[in-house]
């Protein structure tokens, strides 16, 4: 009995190994991906935003503003163009993301307590730059505006202490929780690698049923009298085992070598990943039982697997998608997985929270496997 199961497993492992394309993809793909993404995000933060300052005034007051900007967090002054036109060109060409213009007579106006306006331009095409640049500008302008205001008040004869208090009675402290430095690498490297992993796993599991039909070995197996349940159970066991085996080096490199954050325990992470592997495999099996050959099953598996990362709300939040679309997104096991991974790696939300996710993934697996069995049955009837 067990011998038979072992024989099936051995055969399946052998088949997977012989599928050279698949073997290469599975062995090297996710790891190469992880290394690549770690390389891309090795700067980790969008700091040093290229900034250009046009100082039309050249007074000591304007130079103070320039100094304030030079010392601002996340801004890096790269050019001091002479005119507004030159600045416009720099931003247009993408050489500067932030542009600042200090008007003529700035120093004079400040001294005479006349109103003056400093213009700030931000290139909004790349949001990774734009949001950071805006925050940096908002912070520095508040400080600069306060400094100027205090000076004016003192010049008007108000006590320095009072003048200061008018502007600085409340201090604002900001804290980024879970990812204190707003590190992009922490956020995206593992997620992208896991996205590739789930795509490969979909490809592999799409071979579950159709593989047998493709090999023409179906008749042989039927003749051998092994029950379908047993056959596919053992085959699936091997697939899931392999899928899990591949994720281990990803986790190892991510958490041990690259030291990405992992808030939860390893056992929780692995248990959760296992639940997802089963659910994902069930979806692949469903695909492979619906379609008549490996190419089509792979194609349709990928139709689901490719956009699933975008749908999962890992980057662009689910809550920002249309209300009616959100329940649809939650149908995919990938949505549960990527949401869960985010919580596990940053927040350690606890067993109660994750058990809910595990339960849903488990139910999905049951549903998709049953549908796959049903579909396979129907197809077989159609063949007769």
């Amino acid at each position, binding site marked *: 009995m067990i011998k038979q199961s072992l024989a099936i497993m051995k055969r399946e492992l052998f*088949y997977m190994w*012989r*599928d050279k394309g698949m073997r290469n*993809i599975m062995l090297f793909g996710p790891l190469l991906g992880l290394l*690549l993404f770690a*390389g*891309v995000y090795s*700067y980790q933060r*969008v700091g040093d935003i290229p900034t250009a300052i046009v100082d039309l005034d050249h007074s000591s007051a304007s130079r103070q503003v320039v100094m304030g900007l030079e010392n601002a967090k996340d801004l890096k002054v790269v050019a001091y163009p002479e005119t507004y036109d030159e600045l416009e060109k720099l931003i247009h*060409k*993408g050489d500067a993301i932030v542009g600042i213009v200090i008007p003529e007579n700035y120093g004079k106006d*400040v001294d005479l307590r*006349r*109103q*003056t*306006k400093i213009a700030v*331009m931000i290139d909004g*095409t790349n949001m*990774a*730059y*734009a*949001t*950071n640049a*805006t*925050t940096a*500008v*908002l912070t520095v302008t*508040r400080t600069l505006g306060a400094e*100027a*205001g205090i000076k004016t008040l003192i010049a008007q004869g108000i006590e320095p202490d009072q003048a200061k*208090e*008018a*502007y600085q009675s*409340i201090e*604002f402290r900001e*804290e*980024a*929780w879970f*990812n*204190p*430095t*707003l590190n992009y690498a922490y*956020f995206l490297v593992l997620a992208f690698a896991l*996205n*590739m992993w789930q795509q*490969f796993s979909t*490809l592999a599991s799409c071979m579950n049923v159709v593989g047998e039909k*493709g090999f023409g070995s179906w008749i042989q197996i039927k003749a051998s009298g092994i029950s379908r349940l047993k056959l596919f159970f053992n085959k699936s066991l091997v697939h899931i085992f392999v899928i899990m085996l591949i994720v281990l080096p990803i986790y190892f490199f991510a958490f041990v070598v690259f030291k990405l954050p992992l808030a939860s325990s390893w056992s929780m992470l692995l248990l959760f990943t296992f639940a997802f592997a089963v659910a994902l495999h069930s979806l692949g099996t469903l695909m492979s039982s619906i379609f008549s050959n490996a*190419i089509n099953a*792979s194609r349709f598996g*990928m139709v689901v697997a*490719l*956009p699933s990362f975008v749908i999962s709300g890992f*980057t*662009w*939040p689910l809550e*920002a*998608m249309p209300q009616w679309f959100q329940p649809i997104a939650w149908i995919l096991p990938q949505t549960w997985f990527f949401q869960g991974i985010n919580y596990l790696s*940053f927040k350690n*939300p606890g067993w109660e929270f994750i058990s809910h996710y595990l339960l849903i993934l488990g139910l999905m697996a049951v549903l998709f496997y049953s549908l796959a069995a049903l579909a396979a049955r129907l197809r077989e009837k159609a063949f007769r």
Partner: protein
Amino acid sequence: MRQILNIAHYEIAHILRDKILLLIVFIVPLFYAVLFGIIYIAGTLQHVPLGIVDLDHSVESREIVSTFENTPNFKVIPEVNDYAGLEAGMKNGAIRAGVVIPEDYSQKLSQHQLTEILTVYDGSNMIYGLNSRKYLQQVLNTFSAGQTAAYLGGLGMTKKEITNVMDTVSFSMQVWYNPTFSYTTFIFMGLVVMILHQVGFMSISLTVTREKEQNSWIQFVSTAVPSWKIFVGKAIPYFIANFFNYGLLLWFSARFIDVKIGGSVALILLLGLLFNIIIVSLGFVISLYAPNSLQITRYLMIMSVPLFVISGYTWPSTHIPEVLNKIAQSMPYTWMANGFRLVTLKDWGFADMSMTLAVLAGMAVLTSFFALTFSKCRKPLVQTGLVVNETTSYPRKR
């Protein structure tokens, strides 16, 4: 000419008969565009769930609360009202940002002592994190301006005097090219170009392997039709379909998703043309040398994420190591996606785009050279190892 048209006709017949190929060529691009369009339709992140822990419960602290209540960027979640609740809410995702007002806030304010307001935001999702941080800064800037005005009013200044003091130095902030900070404008077209890239490759790269799998490639190789005619004939239907999809998706994006597509139409068409030539000819070359259809499908599909990430379209290439930038620059997607953005958003002209156009044109010449002059030596399908797609579903006459 007649030979070319014959081959094209034959290829069209193939596309029409293979239902899945037909779907991939005509339905899948629009399907993906609609899907991503739905996801990104909102464009900006608003109503970030915010928890306010007001430990002071004074008139002054109520003012802060109402400032936050009155901005569409935040949605105040009333259930969160103590620090433990804030921590729990941040952990389970019920809130993504928080404000803590200390218990002695109004007291210190009246005694003219320094008091501190704590703001927190969730860094586990960068879009939430960065936007919440920006929104918090905006609200606090407004709020502290109000505080200053009130303080000066307390000193007996008139309204006009207060404005004069506070506006001595003011800052006007303009956001160029994408003034609403729309994520749709930012990321959606990059995804659309990726769809066109992948679907373009998917459809043409099966054209030769399919012939090989049906044992009909020999017919092409052995007849007296030159290589270039075979390529042109086979490529024409895909070329037209790709260009049709390019136009369709651009129209759809501009009309329904509200993506900003400006700039020179001639440049947009030229970019599309060059990109299309590269895809069609490179896809054909891949198809010539690939072992079989299944492997192509697999390898192509998994390329999409790395290509997108490395291209510098989202994460700026100034912050990517040089080695990886070099690799990215050898990919047509990098040039097309970034070039398209520069034309449509920043209105780059022919002169600005000369580099991009030259590189894409170079790639087009190179790839079409290899496609036009392929050797007609017969390379049979790889038969060693596992031939998994033995049974193809290509419709045949029964």
